[in-house]
């Protein structure tokens, strides 16, 4: 085994005024030829900074203060910016998290791909085209000829990521750095892309540094694992060793937080249906004279129901209509047909009346709070608008803050003073302030780190028992659904494919689609039942 990329005792300083002095401290990693090294950590652990240092793409304000970077014997700290241009793409390549923003929207996929050979190797147009076609064939794009002529927006997320991989491997680099390449993808697509990366890595003997926060993904592809926390490598070893016999407490905690795919013990459920959705349809049509796109059926005759005090998970991949369903249920979107009934009566069209019946917890805790207002006021404003005296509403807000595990005095602070998990707790408090009959949670934990995810889910479970909450829980992640939910409805292309008690659906899925979703969960072998 020869070391391709060696990072030794690297320390990178953050600009003054940051929450800690160094982004990474004394980090040493070795990436050997023909292996996949997974760098795992939660947000803020310094894993992406390490990768950008290896690419010579440190963000302005960051500076290397100590240590060395070495690519096959060449000292990367001495490389000038002109020399970097020759190294990047040719010797070290990178695949980014968001394939849409990493591709130029105004150039065809073919033109961008061919550029690699034309710029770096000076090949002529015909030869570059040949190579591009071969590369797209290798990453198993369904229609490589068509893809060459297509613009990035005409491909799906998974296809775009395949193009990015083809581009990264175009010049047979010695080192490939993948920065959360599958985080933005659906589970089934993620499984395909992971298999593709593994396959290409074996075939080309590339050394891959794979950055991820998901231990499931690690279990699927890693040869070796380095766990990072607050800028330091806390544990490193073979995938087998780290995943099965972790040494460091932090690694153990992270592994414990990975949700297992086992249905919870079934509870006795009430027969009362507090939320009933009957035959809901919603079509997104493009308006105007030039109707280029075909209308999209986001909801096609959807019927689901939530029992009082229970949780229904609506599971589906992107584009399945699950978020549209959530928005129709809380009244943010109007439906084209069908009915939403809460407590037996149709959802009132008036905003103020509906607020008492159904509330929502949003996906992104950073976008769902107004940055310029105190969080207490944002929690209390709903009850105040509904007629509660301001003083009483503020007292209730304090109590709610305590109930969701925050300090009651935190009501006087602004959103930027809280972490993502804390903000999500505030979002939950805001929803509960209206004392709704039904709580709609739209991917409430998908933007959070695993350990924080587990805490928020535990909070929701506890609140459900205490307040007898009925929850409609939207998620793309079956593992998350399995932790909290009593019943599940699997959606695909606006249609409910399958629904029933979660234990039954997991144990014996009736539809092929559910089966493929379960099969695609990363790390099943390790974390499964």
């Amino acid at each position, binding site marked *: 085994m020869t070391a391709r990329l060696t990072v030794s005792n690297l320390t990178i300083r953050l600009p003054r005024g940051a929450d800690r002095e160094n982004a990474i401290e004394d980090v040493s990693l070795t990436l050997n030829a023909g292996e996949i090294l997974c760098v795992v950590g939660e947000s803020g652990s310094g894993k992406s900074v390490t990768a950008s240092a290896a690419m010579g793409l440190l963000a302005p304000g960051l500076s290397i203060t100590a240590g060395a970077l070495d690519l096959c014997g060449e000292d990367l700290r001495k490389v000038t910016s002109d020399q970097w241009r020759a190294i990047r793409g040719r010797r070290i390549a990178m695949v980014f998290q968001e394939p849409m923003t990493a591709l130029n929207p105004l150039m065809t996929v073919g033109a961008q791909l061919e550029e690699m050979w034309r710029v770096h190797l000076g090949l002529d147009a015909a030869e570059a085209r040949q190579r591009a076609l071969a590369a797209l064939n290798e990453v198993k794009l369904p229609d490589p000829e068509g893809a060459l002529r297509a613009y990035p927006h005409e491909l799906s997320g998974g296809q775009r990521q395949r193009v990015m991989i083809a581009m990264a491997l175009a010049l047979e680099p010695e080192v490939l750095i993948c920065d959360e390449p599958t985080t933005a993808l659906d589970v089934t697509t993620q499984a395909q892309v992971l298999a593709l990366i593994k396959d290409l890595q074996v075939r080309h003997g590339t050394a891959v540094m794979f950055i991820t926060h998901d231990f499931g993904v690690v279990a699927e592809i890693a040869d070796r694992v380095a766990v990072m926390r607050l800028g330091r490598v806390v544990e490193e070893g073979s995938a087998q060793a780290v995943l099965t016999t972790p040494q460091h407490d932090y690694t153990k905690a992270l592994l414990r937080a990975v949700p297992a795919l086992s249905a919870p013990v079934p509870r006795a459920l009430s027969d009362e249906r507090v939320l009933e959705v009957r035959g809901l349809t919603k079509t997104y049509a493009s308006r105007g004279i030039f109707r280029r796109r075909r209308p999209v059926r986001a909801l096609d005759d959807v019927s689901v129901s939530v029992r009082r005090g229970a949780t229904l998970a609506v599971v589906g991949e992107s584009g399945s209509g699950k978020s549209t369903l959530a928005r129709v249920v809380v009244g943010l979107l109007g439906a084209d047909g069908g009915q939403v009934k809460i407590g037996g009566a149709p959802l009132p069209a008036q*905003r103020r009346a509906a*607020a008492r019946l159904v509330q929502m917890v949003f996906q992104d805790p950073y976008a769902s709070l107004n940055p310029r207002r105190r969080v207490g006021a944002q929690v209390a404003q709903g009850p105040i608008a509904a007629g509660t005296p301001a003083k009483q509403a503020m007292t209730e807000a304090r109590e709610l803050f305590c109930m969701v595990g925050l300090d009651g005095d935190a009501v006087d602070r602004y959103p930027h003073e809280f972490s993502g998990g804390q903000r999500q707790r505030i979002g939950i408090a805001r*929803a509960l302030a209206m004392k709704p009959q039904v709580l709609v949670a739209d991917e409430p934990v998908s933007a959070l780190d695993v350990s924080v995810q587990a805490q928020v889910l535990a909070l929701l479970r506890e609140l459900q028992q205490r307040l007898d909450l009925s929850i409609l829980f939207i998620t793309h992640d079956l593992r998350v659904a399995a932790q909290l939910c009593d019943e599940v409805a699997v959606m695909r292309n606006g249609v409910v494919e399958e629904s029933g008690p979660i234990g039954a659906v997991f144990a014996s899925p009736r539809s092929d689609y559910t089966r493929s979703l379960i099969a695609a969960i990363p790390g099943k072998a390790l974390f499964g039942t």
Partner: protein
Amino acid sequence: MRAAKAYLRSPAAVIGTVILLAVLVMGVGADWFYPGDPLGLAGRPLQWPGQNPRFLLGTDSSGRDIAAQIVHGARISLLIGFVATSIAVVIGIAIGSVAGFYGGATDTALMRVTEAFQTLPNFILLLVLVAVFGSTIETVTIAIGIVSWPPVARLTRAEFLSLRTRDFVQACRVQGLSDAHLILREVLPNALPPVIVYASVVMAVAILLESALAFLELSDPNVPSWGNLIGLGRNVLRTEWYVSAIPGVAILLTILGVSLVGQGLNDALNPRLARAR
């Protein structure tokens, strides 16, 4: 607090603030520096600056003290700047926020009105308004405010269009809050920073528009404005050029001050843009 610190750290902002404060002190203390009517006869006409120690900046063609007119004129220019800008910003925010928040037919209607105003060159429109309603200082100020609001409305609308779909606004809808609350308490405070920055541009243009009117002798002749002085000096521009040049420099410095303050505000309120520069 953080914004205030960032503001004071920028040299441009500090210089601009100092200039504007100086103009403000001149305007506020005008009666103390030069008591009496600045438009009254003071001495022999057309004395060069420094020629007579009584008249620091000389006299104009009617024998009035230029220094007294400059100091009193600061009051008029600032007043026109502030009041006209306030009018433009209030109209602009009202129209822009309603158009941006509701979208659809409301947006289309309001934006066509805005474009109708924008297609007319605003100085021509100003001339028409002054010609119709007379040229007292009040009508001139209001007229300047009326011709300056369309860009403010467009800017506010653009901010509202992107902010109204944010999750925190949707969350307030779900809480059952009224549209008025959503517009005034949730969206507007977040839309305001670029509008405040743009207001400094509006203010500079307002001061210039008044001077331009006065140069054409269409502004209120009964107030000691800088523009009026430039207009007077026009007749003796070749021989006694200082009559026009001195108020010209005063206008230049004031507008420089306003622009620098605007730049500083921009850096302080949009820290991300400032760092990228």
